[in-house]
């Protein structure tokens, strides 16, 4: 059986399953906790699926009310991300804007701000037509206002993955790529053996950060957690002159629209492709992706002539309520789940990783994750 080589001394061992952003963040925070040696097991390569190819939105705006508290912690971490991982991850606080296209949209946004304020948060505000046109000079005339979080923004997903990887490795995390987890087994002395196609790893604590494949890991210990999969499609265009700083969404239509520093525009919004979890592939459906193109062209008429140069879909776990699952396994003590971020986990990754690392290290955390336990699905079922 393969053992970690750094076994000298009283270090406790942890294994993180999954080399996506949540796995890397969890590993980084736990490794920085005195007394822990962390190994990340990644079946393909770090950032292979959603982590490396998502829209890069760093957004509190419009989140499920249960997610806001953790999202606010994360926002503070993003503001100082360079201190955490030694790189700015391409993060720019250029704002997030959800445009309103009708009086009904405006009313919806007003109600939303009231609901968020009632919880004690003030990062979301409603702006009028003049202000939305100041923020988005190229926006179509029918847009009459917006919901805005001015210090939200966006980051470069692949750069972020690589920065977390580097920081984790510098802290002492062992990252093993190309290794597939095949089983989990509890030992008599209370540890867990993580079995792989290349030998086993013994650990006191294990984190399941396997994204779209996390329910399979849970199933290995006999735990059935209801959770689906999504393959959100994205479009990237040719380079365009700078015309849009904030990341843009729409109040009653599915869109995420962002011009990145090199001038290309990245368009998403949760339009679904087809995924094949077993084959680890996803397929773009153009009839469906056409809706993202149509909404973009209607909100930004300059986009009609812009050329789309690529499209893709990233596989990600989606829970029934689109809020993540974070909590200790009910079947195997010492195993902690963190997955099901449902296509908006990028912003949450610094804080969620810190929370899960605390769960691994001391079984509890003060970070606001209580609403995310999988019991909310399994008890109801």
């Amino acid at each position, binding site marked *: 059986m393969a053992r970690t080589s750094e076994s000298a001394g009283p270090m406790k061992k942890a294994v993180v399953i999954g080399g996506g952003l949540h796995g890397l963040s969890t590993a980084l925070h736990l490794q920085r906790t005195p007394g822990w040696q962390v190994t990340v097991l990644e079946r393909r390569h770090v950032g292979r699926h959603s982590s490396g190819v998502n829209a890069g939105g760093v957004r509190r705006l419009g989140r499920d009310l249960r997610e806001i508290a953790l999202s606010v912690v994360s926002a503070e971490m993003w503001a100082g991300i360079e201190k955490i991982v030694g790189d700015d991850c391409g993060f720019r606080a250029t704002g997030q804007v959800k445009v309103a296209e009708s009086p009904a949209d405006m009313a919806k946004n007003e109600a939303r701000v009231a609901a968020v304020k009632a919880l004690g948060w003030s990062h979301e505000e409603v702006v009028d037509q003049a202000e939305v046109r100041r923020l988005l000079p190229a926006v179509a005339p029918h847009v009459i206002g917006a919901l805005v979080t001015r210090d939200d923004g966006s980051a470069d997903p692949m750069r972020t993955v690589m920065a977390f990887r580097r920081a984790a490795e510098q802290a002492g995390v062992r990252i093993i790529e190309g290794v597939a987890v095949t089983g989990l087994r509890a030992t008599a002395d209370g540890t867990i053996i993580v079995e792989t196609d290349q030998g086993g790893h013994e650990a006191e604590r294990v984190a399941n950060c396997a994204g779209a494949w996390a329910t399979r890991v849970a199933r290995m210990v006999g735990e059935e957690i209801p959770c689906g999969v999504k393959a959100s499609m994205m479009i990237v265009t040719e380079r365009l002159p700078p015309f849009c700083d904030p990341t843009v969404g729409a109040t009653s239509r599915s869109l995420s629209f962002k011009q990145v520093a090199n001038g290309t525009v990245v368009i998403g919004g949760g339009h679904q492709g087809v995924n094949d979890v077993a084959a680890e592939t996803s397929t773009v459906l*153009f009839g469906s*992706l056409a809706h993202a193109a149509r909404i973009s062209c209607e909100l930004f008429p300059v986009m009609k002539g812009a050329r*789309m140069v690529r499209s893709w879909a990233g596989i990600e776990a989606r829970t029934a309520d689109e809020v993540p699952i974070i909590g200790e396994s009910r079947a195997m003590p010492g195993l902690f789940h963190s997955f099901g971020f449902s296509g908006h986990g990028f912003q949450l990754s610094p804080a969620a990783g810190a929370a899960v690392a605390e769960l691994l290290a001391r079984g509890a955390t003060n970070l606001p994750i209580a609403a995310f336990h999988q019991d909310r699905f399994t008890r109801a079922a």
Partner: protein
Amino acid sequence: MSEVDILVLGAGPAGMAAATEARARGFSVLVLDENARPGGQVHRAVEARTVKDGQDRDGAKLAAAFRASGADYRPDATLWAVEPGGKVFWSEGGAARSISAKRLILCAGATERPVPIPGWTLPGVMTVGAAQIALKTAGMVPEGKAWIAGQGPLLWLYANQVVARGGTVQGVIDLSPPGGLARAAWHLPNALRAPEYLVKGLAWQQRIRNAGIPIRRATRLVAEGDGRLERIVIDGWSRPADLLLLHDGVVPNTQVTRAIPGCAHEWDAGQRCWRPTLDEWGNTTVEGVLVAGDSGGIGGAKVAALAGRLAAMEAARALGRLTVDQRNAEAGRTRLEWKRQRAPRRFLDALFPPLPEAAIEDSTIICRCEEVTAGRLRGAVALGCLGANQTKAFTRAGMGPCQGRICGPAVHGVIAAARGVDPAGVDPFRTRFPTKPLTLGELAALAS
């Protein structure tokens, strides 16, 4: 029209032959081709030219039969996506269209292997294939400070065509690694099953010498100039130049097949390129998707036309028009000729192995679109990138509008050489639909 029996991509020799054969068997056939006229690269503009040689005769015959076949032929049509189940998307006349096909026969031809020498991005540096297109479509020949450099059969063929049309170049710079003949001799007996290729090859070089064009062997070639090509430096010897035509053989165009989920590709160690995994009828590993011609492995125009017919016969079997026995019987002669025409290939592959990627200098641009040098790729490998998709995320190499069409083989080779591993073990670029850019406005129109 929302459905068609057989959709053929490409109107080169393979596509024209496949479409003609499929029509003869009573299928509805739609042919999409990016060019304005049928012929593909080798028979480009063949209908408009006076027939000069055997190759022209073959092309003219194929094109005439294709025109008469009754296939729905769409020139200036660019396929950009294939969805599971055979739904195909393309752009034509500024509008996006789609159709469902029961069988796809993809005949996308070949592209030239890149020749990344220092300065190859300067205006005035082009490929030999490009110059041949200018010759075939507009009767243009090089003259003045023009040079040809590289290796491979097409280079010698083109130089001959130039001489025949009254053009000239300052010289042909032969960059082929020494020892080609010794390596290739092993395959000579097989090559002699179709000796016409070898006889032609030897005659080509002689005719160039007879025309007074010097042939010079060299190992290092640099293109230089301020904003455009002004001179080339051949092993340290500087000569004025305003046109440099490069060539290092051709590779299958797998841009579409690689983007189809589940369509397996394999490394061809002899031709040093990726090609789709095919059975002898052209079936890929995806039901209903067939490949014929050079996009399934380099074989040349004759092999392509034969493969196109075989693929159409197989489609006829799959769609219930022929039994297996009928297909085999009717394919008999075509199959024999297909085998004979393929015989010299290993000899040619061994004679002209591609120029070694390890020798590309660090400062030389590999990805022309995003202007990424070999040195940056090697740097990404040093940071742990194992394949082309990871170096793409790191460096943007392969992310520009050409989507890795040009730089793909070079990026792959540079990574393999930098890692010191067999190229077969290095992931090539994953391609994505749309394989050609289309406007958001075109795509948006599909939503209504």
